[in-house]
């Protein structure tokens, strides 16, 4: 039996909005530590990993490990019924056929309830090791989204080059080339605009912009985004949710001459 009450339904709504364009169906794995999700896109070059910790819910109860296989497009349709400040309660039996979603308006004068049919999804889980990245860039999520969309207009892929001077996003397309360079920046008034670059060694990698633009749909979840790079390993883009909950995206780098 699962019962999880989320004060802000919008969190789940934004998470699902961010990943529904990357994966079609996925399992929400519920256990006593929280609700986790891991899924890859159709081409298996990108991976999304979400963790909603039990502390983020009040109350949270999960007696047994339950996998809720959901079609994200369908879930979006149900979540569309939620108002921004609704309280969401997710309920499911131990061997569920449906997932029950209950939306209460904050004034508790409107209650809407939905049952979403579940599906059996065969998914392989990848073990993701803790990695020491060569470069870790923390920057405003809106800024990252802007850079990605701007460069995506010119080219399919972006080169990300982190050095002691800063981080340079550059692209080379049919109509020309372009680049955006960011330097470390600390603002006392507006800490959400800080740009922080931690570097152990310079690194330069190329990524598909279409995927990065897709990741940026999660910008609504958090003001800041953390981008971690090391050569020869997938890029990590992490959005922190409330507490230690997170939404992470991994993307395989482009290797080879065909940039």
């Amino acid at each position: 039996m699962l019962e999880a009450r989320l004060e802000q339904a919008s969190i789940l709504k934004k998470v699902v909005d961010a990943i529904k364009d990357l994966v079609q169906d996925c399992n929400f794995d519920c256990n006593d530590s929280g609700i986790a999700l891991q899924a890859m896109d159709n081409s298996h070059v990108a991976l999304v990993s979400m963790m909603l910790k039990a502390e983020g819910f009040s109350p949270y109860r999960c007696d047994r490990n339950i996998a809720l296989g959901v079609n994200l497009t369908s879930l979006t349709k149900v979540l569309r019924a939620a108002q921004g400040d609704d309280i969401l309660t997710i309920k499911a039996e131990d061997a569920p056929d449906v997932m029950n979603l209950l939306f209460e308006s904050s004034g508790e004068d409107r209650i809407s309830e939905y049952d979403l049919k579940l599906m059996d999804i065969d998914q392989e889980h990848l073990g993701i090791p803790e990695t020491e990245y060569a470069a870790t860039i923390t920057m405003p999520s809106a800024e990252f989204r802007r850079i990605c969309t701007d460069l995506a207009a010119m080219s399919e892929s972006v080169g990300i080059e982190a050095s002691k001077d800063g981080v340079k996003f550059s692209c080379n397309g049919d109509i020309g080339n372009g680049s955006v360079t960011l330097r470390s920046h600390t603002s006392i008034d507006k800490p959400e605009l800080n740009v922080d670059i931690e570097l152990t060694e310079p690194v330069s990698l190329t990524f598909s912009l279409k995927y990065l633009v897709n990741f940026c749909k999660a910008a609504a979840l958090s003001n800041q985004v953390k981008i971690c790079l090391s050569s020869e390993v997938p890029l990590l883009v992490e959005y922190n949710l409330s507490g230690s909950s997170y939404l992470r995206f991994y993307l395989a780098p482009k290797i080879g001459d065909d940039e």
Partner: protein
Amino acid sequence: MARTRSAKPSTAAPAADTDSIKSKSAITLVPHTGEPPKVFILPSKATPEARIVTLPNPRTSQPARYLACPDTGIYEFKRIAAPKSEPRSWLIEATPTSNESKASGAAGPGSQVTMGSELFVATALDPLFLVLPALADVKASKGSKKPKRLFLSSDDHLDKLPQESSHLSDILRWDATRRLIESRMSAVCDAVDAGDEQMFRLNEDKLLEAIYQKAKRMSEGGLPPSMEDKFVNKVLEAPLMHRVVRTESQVTSNPDSGTSTPQTDSATSQSTVSSAETDASSVSQTSTAATSVAEVQADESIVSALQASPEIVQLQKLKTAFEFICASYVPPELADTLKQSFTGTGGPVDFSLLNDYIASLEKLRSEMLAVRAQDYSRKRNMDEEEDEARMEKKRKMEEEKKKKASESRGVRELKKVNTSGMKKLSHFFQKK
């Protein structure tokens, strides 16, 4: 000719069972337990010593029920039942004068209705088929192309039949039955005398000849109408010429006419038809409408594109009969080789006439199909096949649509992204 009994005459236990239920039902309605009584028609020539026994089925080697009579041989049970769509029951009347109630001493009129509408008719079975799996030694010869068969005594052969729940050894104690089986064995086997015993070895040529004779008799006596319709007439039926297509409906509206085969020589064809009919009525099958036969034939001599001669029809009947026997009584492994040697060159009958006819028929059919496909005037009554193909296409489209609806625009667009040079994530991360 045949007498009907309301219960298995030989097995005493079930009979007593049903009787006890009958007597109780006069007072209270006892929920019916156990098997409902079955209705059997037994041959009148079978002696009272006849028993219902379990023997391995020659085709499947599974235990099946047979009626064995020490004097007249072995009978198999044919089940005759109404189709599921027409539920029927038996009303079994137990009059005090009937043999059973006298014998068991049950009093009172305990008539009863059984749910099943099945009728089991015991028909004579050549014991040859029962021993055939042992003679052919199908299990042992599996794998090797040419089985090496040894001369063995009849007992050694019969030991090879499946022993579980088989009463074979019991009925072999009847001398007449044993003699019968051995005489049938010698009909298809090479035999040698070894001391006071006879040793047998299966001779496939003899077996082929024996089955051929059976098939010949079966086809000459006329096949049952339903069989003739499906395997003889349907196969030989030529497509109707397209210009006189209106008469087609007349032909199909007479499904039990039994002779939609195109035949010019009406004298011979009529004679085979009538013989088939008398045969059919004697075994109480649905009789055919004789009047419609002539009428349809008159039409068909105009419309049919190709006509089968009586010889061809006879050949097809023979082939059907042979295949029926093989499919019903001969182990599958043996049936294949038999069929090959029967229809192949060097067989007892020359099938070239029939094969030529069927080949030309095939050609004609494909031509007709091609003509129809181009014919715009037939747009409205499309072929079933075309219909099916269209439905399939539609179904596929719907499925695709549904699948599309369940994936978001973003997912669809990501499919188009050029991922060359990007390794799969399973390359970096280990599978759990």
